[in-house]
């Protein structure tokens, strides 16, 4: 990082330090995963494996969007802590719901 970048109260990340992920590549991966999900959903598999595979693919897509399109990967670690704060609550809620059955 140059001195100029240090003193620039500039863009989201200092000029010259733009973290441009390969947006089109990620778009292609998201598209392929969506097609894979649709194809996988209609396979003759046990419901458990269908659900597990679909959820894994959905989480994979969600992570790609969060990390690269929302640029969380390039944010300060403190924001990571904030962004992941509700995830334990999400897990607790879903787990509590599932234990009902």
């Amino acid at each position, binding site marked *: 990082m140059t001195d100029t970048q240090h003193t620039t109260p500039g863009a989201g*990340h200092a000029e010259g330090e733009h973290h441009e992920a390969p947006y089109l590549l990620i778009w292609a991966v*998201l598209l392929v995963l969506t097609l894979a999900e649709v194809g996988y959903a209609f396979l003759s598999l046990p419901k458990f494996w269908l659900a597990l595979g679909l959820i894994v693919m959905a989480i994979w897509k969600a992570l790609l969007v969060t990390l690269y399109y929302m640029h969380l990967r390039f944010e300060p670690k403190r924001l990571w802590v904030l962004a992941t704060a509700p995830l334990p609550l999400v897990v607790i809620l879903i787990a509590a719901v599932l234990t009902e059955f």
Partner: protein
Amino acid sequence: MTTHTPALQANMMVPDSTFEPGMQVYTMKLGMWVFLLSEVMFFTSLIGSYIILRFAHPDHFAQPGVVLNVPLTAFNTFFLICSSVTMVKAFAAIQHGDQRWLKLWLLATILIGSMFVGIQVVEYNALAHEGFVPGAAEYSAVGREAFKAGLAETAPVVGGPLYGATFYTMTGFHGVHVTIGVICLIFVLIRALRGHYIQLDHRGVELIGLYWHFVDLVWIILFTIVYLI
């Protein structure tokens, strides 16, 4: 003279007065993240309710593709993913100070987002026409193919009232979020046309981008849970 670490300076988009030193981002960005995290809990509560109802009343929910139009929705999902790309390209454009492409990518995002909402309205209309509506006590989903074949009266029932209620609640709330996003994008585009965003300060573009990608993220989860599982 105030000194900041390089990491802190790298996130400075605006003068120090709007900078939140604890999180090392500007305050509006921190606010947007906190808002989005509250939205995570909102949609999680909806999904949690859906799981409870689905496990408790499996007879109310049809198999994937029987009632809901998966190919159409997959196509719509493709649209929303495309809109995320155009949104992030708009952000990248203004990061490079490219005003022309900022406006064009924003316009593309608005158009694609509007198409998503439009297709959802078409889907709702078709489903309602087939009798897939929420709330009616005697309602039973008979399936799209049965309806098309004129067998709606005699075909075996494949779903119950909870299916429609949960479907419209979850996708409806998401649709409202997309609609709000489109309205906000139009506002941002108008500001962009007036030259409000520059390479050194484009907070509005980044903030609406965060919101828009979050809406895309929620749809990725909903599409899987509501349409495919």
